């Protein structure tokens, strides 16, 4: 599960991370098959230490990724993530798209979740995906 955001976002980002943590919990032992990756779009303010503290507050298994400005721009373009810095009040905020990507172990993009999809809906999606990924000889077991 992959998504993009920034830690100063008090709203969409913690909600998405909390949902991801809830999804892993609800999956039980299958939760270990899910790797959550949170990529910062604000590498200037989201330091390595902050990313580590922030992601592990939700779930110690979560990975926070941070590049420099150029690498961030490149990866966002690759994943068609829109973001832009907007001056606001005393500093700046980021406008950013909020879709959550789900890749299978072969690296194929399988799902896109909107922020309003619930943890229960996400778990149901993942269960269907995991079932379809089982090898044929285990299909009837």
């Amino acid at each position, binding site marked *: 599960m992959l998504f993009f955001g920034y*830690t*100063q976002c008090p709203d969409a980002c913690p909600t998405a991370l909390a949902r991801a943590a*809830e999804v892993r919990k609800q999956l039980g032992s299958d939760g270990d098959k899910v790797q959550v990756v949170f990529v910062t779009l604000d590498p200037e303010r989201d330091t390595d230490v902050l990313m580590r503290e922030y992601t592990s507050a939700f779930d110690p298994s979560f990975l926070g990724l941070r590049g420099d400005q150029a690498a961030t721009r490149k990866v966002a373009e690759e994943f068609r993530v829109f973001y832009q810095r907007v001056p606001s009040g*005393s*500093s700046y905020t980021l406008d950013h798209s909020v879709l959550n990507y789900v890749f299978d172990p072969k690296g194929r993009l399988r799902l896109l979740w909107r922020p309003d999809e619930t943890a229960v809906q996400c778990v149901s999606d993942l269960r269907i995906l995991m079932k379809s990924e089982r090898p044929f000889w285990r299909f009837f077991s």
Partner: protein
Amino acid sequence: MKSKILVSAFLLVAAGVVDAQVTVSDAWVRATVPAQRATAAFMQIVATDGARLISASSPVAGTTEIHEMAMVDGVMKMRAIPGLDLPAGKTVVLSPGSYHVMLLDLKAPIRVGDAVPLSLVFESPDKRRTTMELKAPVRALTDASGGHRQP
């Protein structure tokens, strides 16, 4: 016994009321991890005769702003706004997905169990300004219920 209940009810109301016409309820602040320098306060505000929230401040933050969030075509946008109109008698909800009081340049981490002091400045329709002091309890960083909790 009855009078005791009445007294405590009065004290409870007095905590969040200015001139008996602006009421703030369910205020809370999102906890932070140590390296984080920003967080937000959420609450519900009712101004009986209408008012405007024109500023906020807190001793825990170097800078405090009133922010609006909006989802436009799948893009989350956050902006500082000069003030927040409180139409008469209407409950204005500051929650994830709408408005919040942004606390920036935090002086220390915000921890669950703390209560964050907030000063809110309201302007009445006749331009009178009043300040309300309150203490907002801290909820976990991972709290996801805010956006969906019913008033």
